[in-house]
């Protein structure tokens, strides 16, 4: 094999690209990771935090499959919190503030230590194809690399334009150039490209903030680790701080609304509703007197602070004035200003369920280029794209995770079946089988799958086997041991049964010397056992519909009696299964029946 020939090339080394390159190489594909800069591998471009509601579950899933995000977070975390601790375990999600430099460093070192993975600094310019199949990539400096599979994880770099007030500058991230040629190359290949908008708040010099005027927010006393490979978090935890906007700030922004690109017409694309800029908040919720702002350290040395909650497209002078009015930041030095960014993405209905494009064989897309937001969403897609690129090269069927198996499955299914008008972010409410898709059982759901495809390490396998054996012992005991006419398991299944809190104190259980993780798992399983049983019918129906495959080349215009709206929608989305078809907006059960009849007719002839 020539030096410039690889099985798989990954373009972009953000959270998607890092997981993609790692996964592909782990599976045995000779992989090249192209990045503009080694220094910014897996950089937290926005919020210096991993996890959160819905996202924490994804991070745990990435870890359970053998990805990098979980161990990197545990290593680089500077404050850990388990969100929704007071609520049910199914909606509890880990979240951690990270030292973004340490995080990047950890991922870079992991990638460098991965066999079969080469990292090169270069800017990709043109995707090379032959007969609608990927053959390689040409870089801006003219160098050419050949490959069988190409994964684009370009984040916000495709034709990125940053806005600070009326100032506009091309770039994928502050101080880094945009990737315009690559975007053109995707268009030339016939992919549909559209625009999205997002934004990031100002970063402040941590030493110039008056913390006495803010409230302190500490991490958990017993930090909950992200990775199933770790038993505990031992590093020192660093506090965050909260402060509130006030009427002075709101008036300032209202008075200067014309200078905000979001309101002046300079930015025409939509931003995310779940992450509104401060000007959007005060306009949309005019009656709210104050908005919370979190001051989050970006690194363990506490050099810079991320102002979570006041992202804006306002001009520099307005940003400065706003901070002067914000309690605690009156004299703060701005390290870099908030900006809004517009970028290209490829609507995901152009993808197969493996994340390979329908149009170009061997071309995979993952992360923000598919219209998502967030490191976890990106990382998960990267991991799947890496796995599926490698599997394609080796002639294996793609790895597909169902909505009943993982948040990752929910996300990919959502992306493939519904158009978006804002960057897609995970919420726990998107998962209809949420009670089964928990952060505590991500390993039990996914590690066996990771093992079977060869992604997880032997070390992880062994840990998992030990845990599984312990759980089995505990289960057997709980189901056979009885008191008050009920098995301990049945007692645990009752709402608010005190046994849950006392379990670890039972002599028989003490004697088993189980990990807390195992005892917690049994308690949670028992709590939800009755509920998940009720969902079983739904799950079975879901699986049946998913098992009914639809040909990708099915010409819906030929389907007799199919409604025009259904023809249009189905032609645009070309669903892979009957279940997917049913989840496309506006498709009725009757449409599905018509398709089934058509297929029966076609294939019986």
């Amino acid at each position, binding site marked *: 094999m020539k030096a410039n020939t690889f099985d798989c090339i990954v373009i972009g080394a953000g959270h998607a690209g890092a997981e993609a390159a790692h996964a592909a190489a782990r599976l045995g594909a000779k992989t090249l990771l192209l990045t503009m800069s080694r220094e910014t591998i897996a950089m937290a471009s926005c919020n210096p935090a991993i996890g959160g509601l819905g996202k924490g579950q994804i991070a745990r899933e990435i870890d359970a499959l053998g990805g990098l995000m979980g161990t990197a977070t545990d290593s680089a975390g500077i404050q850990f919190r388990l969100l929704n601790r007071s609520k049910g375990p199914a909606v509890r999600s880990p979240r951690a503030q990270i030292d973004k430099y340490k995080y990047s460093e950890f991922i870079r070192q992991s990638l460098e230590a991965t066999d079969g993975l080469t990292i090169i600094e270069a800017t990709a310019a043109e995707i090379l194809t032959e007969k609608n199949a990927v053959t390689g990539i040409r870089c801006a400096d003219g160098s050419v690399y050949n490959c069988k599979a190409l994964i684009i994880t370009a984040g916000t770099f495709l034709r990125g334009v940053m806005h600070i007030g009326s100032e506009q500058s091309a770039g994928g991230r502050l101080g880094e150039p945009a990737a315009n040629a690559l975007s053109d190359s995707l268009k030339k290949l016939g992919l549909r490209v559209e625009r999205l908008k997002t934004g990031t708040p100002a970063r402040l010099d941590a030493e110039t903030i008056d913390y006495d005027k803010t409230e302190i927010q500490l991490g958990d006393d017993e930090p909950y680790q992200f990775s199933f490979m770790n038993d505990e978090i031992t590093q020192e935890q660093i506090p965050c701080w909260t402060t509130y906007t006030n009427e002075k700030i709101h008036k300032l922004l209202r008075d200067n609304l014309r200078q905000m690109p979001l309101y002046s017409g300079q930015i025409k694309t939509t931003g995310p509703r779940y992450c509104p800029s401060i000007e959007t908040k005060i306009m949309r919720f005019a009656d709210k007197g104050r908005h919370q702002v979190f001051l989050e350290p970006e690194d363990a040395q506490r050099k810079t602070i991320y102002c979570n909650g006041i992202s804006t497209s306002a001009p520099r002078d307005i940003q400065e004035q706003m901070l002067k009015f914000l309690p605690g930041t009156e004299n703060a030095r701005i390290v870099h200003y908030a900006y809004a960014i517009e970028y290209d993405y490829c609507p995901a209905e152009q993808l197969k369920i493996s994340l390979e494009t329908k149009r170009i064989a061997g071309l995979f897309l993952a992360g923000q280029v598919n219209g998502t937001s967030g490191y976890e969403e990106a990382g998960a897609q990267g991991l799947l794209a890496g796995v599926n690129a490698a599997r394609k090269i080796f002639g294996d069927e793609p790895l597909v995770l169902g909505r009943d198996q993982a948040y990752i499955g929910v996300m990919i299914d959502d992306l493939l079946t519904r158009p978006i008008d804002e960057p897609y972010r995970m919420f726990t409410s998107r998962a209809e089988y949420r009670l089964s898709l928990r952060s505590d059982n991500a390993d039990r759901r996914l590690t066996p799958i990771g093992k079977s495809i060869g992604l997880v390490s032997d070390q992880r396998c062994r840990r998992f086997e030990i845990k599984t054996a312990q759980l089995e012992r505990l289960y057997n005991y709980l189901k056979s041991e009885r008191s008050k006419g009920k098995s301990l398991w049945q007692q645990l299944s009752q709402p608010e049964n005190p046994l849950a809190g006392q379990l670890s104190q039972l002599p028989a259980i003490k004697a088993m010397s189980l990990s807390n993780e195992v005892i917690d798992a049994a308690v949670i399983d028992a709590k939800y056992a009755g509920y998940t049983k009720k969902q079983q019918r739904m799950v079975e129906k879901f699986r049946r519909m998913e098992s009914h495959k639809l040909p990708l080349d099915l010409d819906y215009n030929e389907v007799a009696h199919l409604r025009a709206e259904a023809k249009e929608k189905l032609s645009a989305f070309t669903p892979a299964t009957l279940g997917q078809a049913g989840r496309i907006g506006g498709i009725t059960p009757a449409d599905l*029946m*018509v398709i089934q009849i058509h297929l029966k007719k076609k294939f019986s002839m």
Partner: protein
Amino acid sequence: MHNLTDTIIAVSSSAGARTIIRVAGSDAFNTVSRLLGGIDLSKKRAAQNVSIQIEDDFCVRAILYTFPAPASYTGDNICELHCLCCNEAVERIYQKLIDLQCVPADGGEFTYRAYVNGKMDISQAEAVAAIVSGSNQYQIAAAQRVLSGAIEQTVGRISEKILTLLSLVEAGLDFSEEDIEFVSQVQAVNETEQILAEIEKLLAGSISFEQVAEADSVAVTGTPSCGKSSLVNASLGFERSIVSQTDGTTRDVLGHWLKLKKCDCVLFDCAGIGQEPQGLLEQYAQTATIEAAKNACFVVFCVDVSKTDYKNDIEILNFMGITPAIFVATKCDLLRPDELKNKLAELNSLFKKEFLTTSAKTGNSIENLKQRIEQLIISQRTVSPESAEKIAITKRHQQSAATAADNARLAKGELQRQSGETAAMYLRSAAQELSVLSSEHIDEAILGKIFSSFCVGK
């Protein structure tokens, strides 16, 4: 979407003394065997007498026919229980089979299976598809007219309430980091109680689209202000359509559920047909009237007996081109007995028909009219394939609303325990159950009806 692995059940409408309970699916023999106390059904037998234990001291007799796969109508194992017992006992047997994991069949599900299992040819199935795909908008429109959108509105309103509450509960889970209380526990519980009350009200007082679409329909027609609406109201026993002195008050076809002693029907109160429709609205109303009349099982034609001139009535009768089955003389209370006698003689000679005398004001002869309607319905009724699965269809929808109510009740319990994630699960199920009834899925309901009508020879 039909699930081919389910064991499905349907009850044919009782025609005569015999009611047939039909069970189909790979597990049909096992299930029925369990119902019958474990008798062996594996040996092929044409028919056998069985007894079904309903309670400890109460059992009923039935004839059991077994049709093993693949030679049966659907290609599945099929059991037919021909019951010679009262409806209540049939109801109990049905419930027992539901408890044994049988699923109420959707309308046409037997036929759908027949198709999927290669028991029916593609042209039949395609004809079904044509109607399914919504090309037959008229049926949907007609069904909506019949219901005046009332059920859809009610269900839509309840669904909306559930979704609103659900979104608040979900927000409390997904945005718990915000300093916002989306819904207090007390509010959430109250809201759930209201939802529950509304579903229960719906269960108690409404009729579903299938009932109306499959029920025998009777159209009441006549000239404007001849007293049709008053007559319909008197028959129903309460005020339903707006009645006024102005000509043409009934601007559309209104359908009402009329409960009779031995059967039910839908009474269409049709807009009066004037000579020259004025404006689009009136034109539309007249078209709807004529369509409804043509589609009805039979027509009741009303003539205001107190008038002096019946020219209009004769013209309209000719214009409609329909032969009414029942002729009614309305407003008889406005005439003295001797006047009435003369007028009736005049009508008889003009229309060559016997007239039934009625008065909505005094309630006179309303019972007679209902009896005549009932007799006609029963005499016209045959055991048609359309009605073969009628009870099951109704049950399915009833069950949906009942399940929605169950889920709302469970959600309330979870909310009281402040368990948002499990409350959300039940609220979601409640909303999904109700969507079965709503117009969004009306396509599916029609599909069911169509497949029913292909139960040829069954």
